C-alpha cells in the first residue's frame, strides 16, 4: 500500500461488526473504554459482537473491525493475529502495549532479547520457568507481526482519542498521529518546566515561592521528565497533575534523542537513568532500528 492511499477504504457495512480482544496486558485500556462517557453513542455506530472484558459469548469467526489490546508474548498470539488479520478488514492497535510493545516488551529489552526473556522467566518463576508459559516469545507490538491500520497510544489510552480514531476507521480516513514531543503542550497548559523548577528550587530566593505550591511541582523533580522526547497529544496530562512525563505515548517521530541526552548531561543528571526511565514504555523502539531511521529523516 502506498502512503498516498487511505489505509483502508471505508468499511463495507453501515454498522460494521466489531470485536475487542486482549493479548498480554492488564486490561487497563479496555477499562478505559468502559469509562468513556459517550460509550453508548459510540456503540450505536457499530455492531459490537465481542468484547473480551465484558461479553462472555465466544469470539465470532467473522467480523469487520478488530480492536486489539496488549503485546504479543506467545506463539498462540501469533496464530490468533494471523487469523484476525485474514478476517478483519481493519485492525486497530489499542494502547501502548499493542502499538509499541509497552511495559511487556521490557522482558526483551537489551542486546540479546531471547536471553533476557529467559532471565526474566527464571527471576519470576524460578525452577518452574521451564514448565510455565512454554510457548513464550520475546514480547513485541502488533505491528511487528501483522499490518495495523490504526494505532492508539497511551497507558492507558484516552477514550476521546479512541472515539476519534474509531470514527476515522469507520470512514476509512487516514489518521494523523502527532510527531513532535510534549514540551509545547506543556507550555500551553502553562506548567513551569520540571528542569527549570529544580534549578529554581536550588536558589534560596525561590524556595519560599516553591513552598507555596500546593504539593504540585514538589518531590518529583528528581525523576527526569521524558516530555523532551515523548509524543505529544495527551494534553500534558501527568504534568498538569504535578508529575513528570513518564513517556507512555512513546518516543515522538520528531524527537531528537541525542540532543535530549546532551541536555540531561548538562543538567548534571545521569543519561543512563534517563534511558532507563525511557525504556519503561519504549524499550521495543529503543531496541529496534526505527529510531535511527527517524533521526535520519528529521536530522
Amino acid at each position: 500500500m502506498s502512503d498516498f492511499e487511505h489505509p483502508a477504504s471505508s468499511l463495507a457495512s453501515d454498522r460494521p461488526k466489531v470485536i475487542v480482544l486482549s493479548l498480554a496486558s492488564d486490561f487497563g485500556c479496555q477499562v478505559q473504554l468502559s469509562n468513556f462517557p459517550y460509550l453508548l453513542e459510540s456503540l450505536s455506530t457499530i455492531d459490537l459482537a465481542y468484547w473480551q472484558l465484558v461479553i462472555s459469548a465466544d469470539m465470532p469467526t467473522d467480523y469487520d473491525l478488530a480492536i486489539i489490546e496488549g503485546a504479543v508474548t506467545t506463539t498462540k498470539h501469533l496464530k490468533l493475529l494471523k487469523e484476525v488479520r485474514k478476517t478483519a478488514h481493519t485492525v486497530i492497535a489499542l494502547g501502548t502495549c499493542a502499538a509499541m510493545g509497552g511495559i511487556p516488551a521490557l522482558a526483551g529489552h537489551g542486546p540479546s532479547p531471547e536471553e533476557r526473556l529467559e532471565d526474566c522467566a527464571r527471576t519470576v518463576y524460578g525452577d518452574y520457568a521451564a514448565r510455565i508459559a512454554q510457548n513464550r516469545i520475546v514480547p513485541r507490538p502488533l505491528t511487528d507481526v501483522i499490518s495495523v491500520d490504526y494505532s492508539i497510544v497511551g497507558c492507558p489510552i484516552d477514550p476521546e482519542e479512541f472515539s476519534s480514531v474509531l470514527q476515522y476507521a469507520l470512514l476509512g480516513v487516514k489518521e494523523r498521529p502527532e510527531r513532535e514531543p510534549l514540551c509545547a503542550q506543556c507550555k500551553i497548559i502553562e506548567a513551569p518546566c520540571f528542569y527549570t523548577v529544580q534549578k529554581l528550587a536550588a536558589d534560596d530566593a525561590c524556595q519560599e515561592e516553591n513552598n507555596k505550591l500546593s504539593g504540585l511541582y514538589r518531590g518529583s523533580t528528581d525523576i527526569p521528565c521524558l516530555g523532551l522526547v515523548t509524543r505529544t497529544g495527551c494534553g500534558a496530562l501527568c504534568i498538569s497533575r504535578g508529575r513528570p512525563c513518564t513517556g507512555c505515548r512513546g518516543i515522538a517521530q520528531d524527537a531528537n534523542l541525542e540532543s535530549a541526552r546532551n541536555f540531561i548531561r548538562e543538567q548534571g543528571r545521569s543519561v543512563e537513568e534517563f534511558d532507563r526511565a525511557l525504556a519503561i514504555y519504549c524499550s521495543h523502539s529503543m531496541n529496534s532500528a526505527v529510531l535511527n531511521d527517524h533521526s535520519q529523516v528529521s536530522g
Partner: protein
Amino acid sequence: MIYKIIAKQAIEDLFKGLQENYDEVAGPRACGPAFVFDKLQHACELRLDYESTILPPTKYFLAPTERLMRFNRVTGESYDSEPVQTSRAIIGMHPCDINAVLLLDEIFLGDFIDPHYAAARKSTFIIGTSCMPTVGHICNAFGTDEIHRGFDLFLTDLDDRYLLSCRSVPALELVDKYLAASDPTAKDIDDFQERTKRFKDAFTFTPNMDQLPLLYGAKYNDEQLWKDVGDDCLCCGACAAVCPVCYCFDVCDKLDASGQTGLRYRSWDSCLKSEFAEVAHNHNFRPTRASRVRYRFYHKFVGNFSRQGKMLCVGCGRCMRACKVNITPARIIGALQQSQIDKEDATGDGIEKADDAE
C-alpha cells in the same frame, strides 16, 4: 493622551472598576515559581511586579485552541460559527506584548480580517504596565521597549504612585468614575524621566542588529551554521508556543462519538514540526531540523521585515526560558554576526549574494 497620577493603593479601585464593567479581568498572577496571565477574582492576586509569563497575553486574541464551527456530516449543515464574545480587561501587559498585539493586528486585521481575532480584539480593554528588563529581555534591539499606542490605559510605576497614560474614552471614564487621580506635578515628571533612564540602563545586553536581514540572506546557505542549531533542536515547538508573535495555526475536524456531528477547530501550530511543511505525496520542503530552525528565524528577521517593515520578534525573552537547548534570537543573531567576522578574518571578503531566499 491624558496623563494622571494615582496612589499605588488605588489599583484596588481600578480593579473594582474593571470588574464592574467587564465580564472578566485577566492579569499576571504567581503560579509556583512562574507567572501566568489568568482570570483574577481579587486585586490581591495581581502581581504587577512579574518579570515574564509562561504564555503571552496574546493568547486572549488567538487562543491555543478555538472552535471555528460545529457541523453535521450527514446533512452538511454548519452552526455555532460565531466567535465567543467575552468582554475582558487585561491588566499588566508589558510594552513588548502590546507591540506584539500591534504586529498581530497587521496580520489578522490586514488584507484578510479574521473574525475571531477581530471579535476578541474589539471586546478587550488593555492596560499596560511598565517593567524592568532582566536576563533574556532584548526588546531594546527591536524598538519594542517603548509603546505609544495599542493600549487603553498605561501604568508607569513611580515607586509609591503610578503615572497613568489614558489613550481612550473608556479609559478616561474609568479613571473619572473610580479613581482619585491628580494631574502630574514637576516632581512626577522628573521621576518619570529618572525611571525611563533607569529602564534604559538596565539592559545588560543588546544584540548587534547591523544589517541583519542582509546578513541572513547571505548566510542562508551556510550549512555549518544551521546544522549546529539543527543538531540541538528538540523539535518540541515550545518556542513557538510561548512566542507572542508566532501566529501559525492548524485547522482540524473532530467527529463526535455518534459519527454524525463534529467540531472544526483551530489550534496553534509551529514550523519546527516536521509535519508543518509536508505536502501532497509526503513531500516535505523543510525536511531537516536545520532547515526548520533556519526558516523560523528567517520569517522573523527577514520575511516579515520585507512585508511589514518590522521584525516578528518583540524581544520578550519567553523562548529563551522555554527552549532547553538555548536556541534564541540572540544566539541566531550572534551566530550570524560571528560568521561574518570569521569570514572577514579568513578572506577579507565581504558578504556573498543570497541565492535561495524563500
